[in-house]
């Protein structure tokens, strides 16, 4: 038990050190921006990983919750006069309620059927956002008012680097702790065998729903952070391709690995930025890298590499 606590602490400490040290080697504010994007994507991915990696349920429409969080902080202050920081909470609450209501019937489905149902949910939310242009600005998107907390105006890529980094630390801490609670262990039991989990008396439906709601709230908060950071939001953030990106981050990093989600986000967010050098070959290379990574590290980057290190250490 002590070792587990230490391992968790070490993971958090390493992450905090990385976040603190990176600015020393960043040559321009562009790097701060890209890093903030990594932290935001990682936050959403960690949440999705609780659903996919721990509880073993797939969601192909998770960007819907990301979009709800993002549009809550855009619409709330602009149209309804709600203070920006309250809008974050309202977005998270809306996401949680939607996940709870829809999750009940949807999570009865298994495998590919669950995938198509969550995909359908994602498409519906994205459609509503695109269509209700009176509120959301339609396909062109809408501007987001700056976040101000107690008179402090949060703006600039440097400030947002620290804010998103802090959010990621909190998210990581919660996810790591969750893994060691009875709920976290129930999630793992579900993942290994739903029937076995049911037989030992776990309320399977309730735990699936919990994982879905937690994942939705993570995505919603990440969406709010991104909307404030960019000062602008468009429906692509809630779209199918963004859902696919989130799932890809989780799987490439490693299902069930919190660190994996951060590494996956780092790879999938920085790669397109790095590949812009190759201009039109960008997508070709991105697709190729995803395929090769999945073939040679089919359990994801972090689990595959740590298995390799362990094997080396033992021999």
């Amino acid at each position, binding site marked *: 038990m002590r070792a587990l606590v230490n391992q968790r602490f070490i993971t958090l400490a390493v992450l905090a050190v990385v976040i603190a040290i990176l600015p020393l080697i960043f040559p321009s504010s562009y790097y701060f921006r890209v890093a903030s994007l990594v932290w935001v994507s990682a936050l959403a991915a960690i949440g999705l990983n609780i659903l996919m990696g721990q509880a073993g349920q797939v969601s192909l429409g998770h960007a819907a919750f990301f979009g709800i969080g993002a549009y809550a902080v855009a619409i709330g202050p602009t149209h309804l006069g709600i203070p920006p920081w309250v809008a974050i909470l309202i977005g998270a609450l809306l996401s949680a309620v939607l996940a709870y209501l829809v999750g009940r019937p949807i999570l009865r*489905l298994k495998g590919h059927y669950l995938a198509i149902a969550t995909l359908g*949910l994602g498409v519906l939310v994205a459609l509503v956002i695109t*269509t209700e242009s009176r509120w959301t600005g339609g396909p062109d998107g809408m501007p987001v008012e700056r976040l101000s907390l107690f008179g402090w105006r949060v703006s600039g890529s440097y400030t947002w680097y620290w804010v998103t980094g802090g959010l990621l630390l909190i998210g990581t801490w919660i996810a790591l702790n969750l893994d060691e609670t009875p709920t976290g262990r129930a999630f793992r039991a579900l993942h290994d065998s739903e029937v076995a989990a049911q037989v030992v008396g776990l309320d399977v439906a309730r735990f699936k729903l919990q994982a879905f709601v937690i994942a939705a709230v993570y995505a919603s908060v990440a969406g709010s952070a991104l909307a404030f950071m960019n000062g602008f939001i468009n429906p692509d953030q809630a779209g199918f391709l963004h859902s696919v990106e989130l799932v890809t981050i989780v799987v490439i990093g490693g299902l069930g690995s919190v660190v994996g989600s951060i590494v996956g986000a780092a790879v999938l967010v920085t790669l397109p930025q790095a590949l812009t050098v190759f201009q039109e070959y960008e*997508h070709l290379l991105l*697709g190729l890298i*995803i395929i090769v990574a999945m*073939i040679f590290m*089919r359990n994801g980057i972090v689990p595959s590499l740590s298995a390799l290190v362990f094997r080396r250490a033992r021999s």
Partner: protein
Amino acid sequence: MAEFLQFLISGLTVGAVYALVALGFTLIYNASGVVNFAQGEFVMLGGMVTVFAAAAGVPLPLAAVIAICAAIAIGLLLHRFAIEPARGASAVTLIIITIGASILLRGLAAIVFDKQFHKLPAFTGDTPVDMLGAAVQPQSFWVLGGTAVVVLALYIFLEHTLLGKAVLATAANRLAARLVGINTTTIMALAFGGSAAIGAIAGILVTPITLTSYDVGTLLALKGFAAAMLGGMGNPVGAVVGGMLLGLLEAFGAGYISSTYKDAFAFLVILIVLFAAPQGLFGRRAVERV
């Protein structure tokens, strides 16, 4: 009545394309258990290769054959270099691989061709045919007829040839199929090639109506997947019926209720169907072995 008929025909036409994409999904899923998200890219390839071959002076029928062959080649390459090396990986890993493949193919098409929209001339003129007051594009008949031919050909292949029965055997139980001497790797390659050909045919048939560009595949893959699930995954009849239903839902929803929420009806109905019948309309209730 004329209006109803108009929606009916346009729904069936779009539905036929969804049905072909769903059929491609089903063929690969049955043979290998892989949900191939690059399925829409075959449709894109069918349309794009035909457009560019035709623009280079190749007669249209020959251009179509070239496009189908190109799609089959890509399908076989996909199987050989992306799916086969990852044999035994988890379902979600395989899905990510096919998503990677679809990004790759899209990028490739943007380089080899371009990022513009392209049109093919209708096979037999653009003069609408009057059917009980509804104006029907002649190309709609090509789409519906072509789909019928593909479905019939696939049925005859699966039910009345030895190779087709080997495909069915592989779908039913891969291990047992291998035990009776079926080379399941060849069967899987065959499924990817056949599925690519079906996708390409759909692309060629529909391009005169809907245009094509390097990125049309994503939405088609999504709709095709939805259609396959609506019918019940792994059931070819379900795939065709699911595709047609999806097309009709969209056409009638757009016509009578709201055209901006066209895509919403399809997915709303899928959600409702799955709530009521978690295995799709024609899916068999799976028995889980513990």
